[in-house]
């Protein structure tokens, strides 16, 4: 059912954190299979919020979000967790690695509750090691606990976790913000080539327009700040 559906589609989505805040509106956004889209916007413009709506930790007030053909807005929280695990690889802005678990286990965790992704990855441990190596994490660091790794290394682990098992959609929230210019480019190339290899679509948000050259399409988000409420 989902093989022909777009990786992601948002239509008429409206969300606001509270009644007074300026709502985030996304009239129409569709990502075809394998498409790479960059969303640009200044800090506070609602980029992370939008991604939350995409991978289903937030629910829009109105509108529809479908991921790999599944209507996220019609599902229970638990089913949304399932769809996300199965079809979306997420690189969070705060990485969200389990600090006491090894880098390898953090990557493998993405397969643990996603049977289809696991099926696509027959030799999970080798696949995870290779993925980490491909993304530039030294072999010796794969068994160290994530909390002991440098920020750049953690970023690679988070990317490997998002990519393993070839999810239909890769979602990344400012994945390069803590890297220097040279590493930024190298990291983007690694992630993009991996995603391309396994046919994952990419939705990446950033405030950095220099990333635009890597993408098929760029979407600008307006400033989320509303001018009418300046007082607390």
């Amino acid at each position, binding site marked *: 059912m989902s093989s022909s559906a777009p990786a992601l589609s948002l239509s008429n989505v409206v969300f606001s954190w509270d009644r007074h805040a300026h709502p985030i509106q996304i009239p129409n956004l569709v990502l075809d299979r394998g498409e790479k889209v960059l969303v640009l916007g200044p800090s506070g413009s609602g980029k992370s919020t939008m991604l939350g709506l995409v991978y289903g930790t937030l629910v829009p007030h109105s509108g529809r979000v479908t991921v790999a053909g599944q209507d996220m807005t019609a599902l229970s929280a638990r089913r949304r967790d399932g769809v996300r695990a199965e079809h979306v690889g997420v690189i969070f802005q705060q990485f969200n690695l389990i600090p006491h678990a090894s880098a390898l286990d953090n990557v493998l*965790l993405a397969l643990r*509750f996603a049977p289809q992704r696991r099926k696509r990855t027959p030799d999970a441990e080798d696949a995870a090691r290779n993925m980490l190596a491909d993304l530039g994490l030294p072999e010796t660091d794969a068994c160290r606990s994530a909390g002991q790794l440098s920020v750049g290394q953690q970023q690679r682990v988070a990317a490997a976790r998002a990519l393993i098992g070839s999810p239909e959609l890769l979602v990344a929230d400012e994945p390069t913000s803590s890297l220097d210019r040279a590493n930024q480019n190298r990291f983007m190339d690694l992630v993009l080539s991996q995603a391309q290899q396994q046919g994952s679509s990419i939705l990446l948000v950033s405030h950095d327009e220099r990333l635009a050259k890597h993408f098929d399409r760029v979407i600008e988000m307006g400033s989320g700040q509303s001018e009418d409420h300046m007082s607390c």
Partner: protein
Amino acid sequence: MLTRLILSSMRARALTVVLAILTIAFSVGLVLAVNVVRDGTKASFANTISNTDLIVGARSGSVQLMLYTIFQIGNPTNNISWDSMEAIAARPEVDWLVPISLGDSHGEFRVMGTSVAFFDRYRYRGGQSIGLHQGAAFTDLYHAVVGSDVAATLNYELGQEIVVSHGLASFIDHDDRPFEITGILERTGTPLDRAVLISLESMEAIHRGWRPGAGSPTGPEPAMAELQPKEVTAALVGIGSRLDIFNVQRWINTYPGEPLLAVLPGLTLQELWQFIGVAEDALRAVSLMVVGAALLGMIAVIFSGVNERRREMAILRAMGARPGVVFGLLLLEAMIMAGAGCLIGAVGTYGLLYAARPLIDAHFGIWLPMQGPGPEELKLLGGVMAAAGLASIFPAARAYQLSLADGLSIKN
């Protein structure tokens, strides 16, 4: 991998986890120790006297009779006559009879007049006979054998002379007739440890013709045969066949000569234990409260863990873990902690008590039974595990209550 996650998570919080485990271990150990000591006390209490089939005395309450003849507590209401003794001893069913005469004291200890047969017939702890630690039983007038507590408290040695006081807690001494200590009993853990044993004849001798203040009449010592007492306080009776015990008991209880009472020691001990059982319940209540406190401590540890680990729980959910899985992880963690606590507590306590068993016997005369955890103990351990499981529901529920979006956007 999930087990590995639990273990690494626990390792990351090693200090609090170890503290929680120790709290559980300590409280479980405490309850188990209380149970072992209680069983031991009960057993040695029940073992105070054995192989005696009937205790006979003047008619009063059965518990009262038991208390003053065996436990040296309270006073006899009446004596019984020597004729009655002889009548009972003459019954064909009666195998042996050891008379006991009470009423005098030595310091804080009671003096018991009895026959030499007492050393042979009095048994405790399933038929164990009382042994002499030093010296020998009395063979003559004015010989005394003292219990181990008496010797230890008053620093008595063989050959030392002691004076018996008339009545209990009295200042009137039979100081004209000092006794020589010929024997010191081994520790038995029974009230015998606190007794001074003399022969019935000696008992009779110090009282014959004796008036307070005037002392005993002077002149030659009477011959042993003349010192047959006219009255004694009680008697221990052995019956040849178990089947005859109730017959003899009925016969004694309806003895026409004087009002007598014969009681079965085992039954009366049980009756007596019921009074003491109240203290037993109190002990148990206290130890259960300790376990309760330990469980609360464990809940607190798990709960504080949840707040520390909001992000971890959110990550698991983000990766598709169902609520059951998150709950299962917390449950398993609680089980590991409670299990480790129970194990350490049980092994530690039983090991320690086992090692200390001879010491406890020597000091308190309580031989701990130590037959491992019985049904009550297993129920307790099971209860601790179950409570730990229940306790983990709260943190698990809380982990799911916290919104996923919040859990994932905790800033570090």
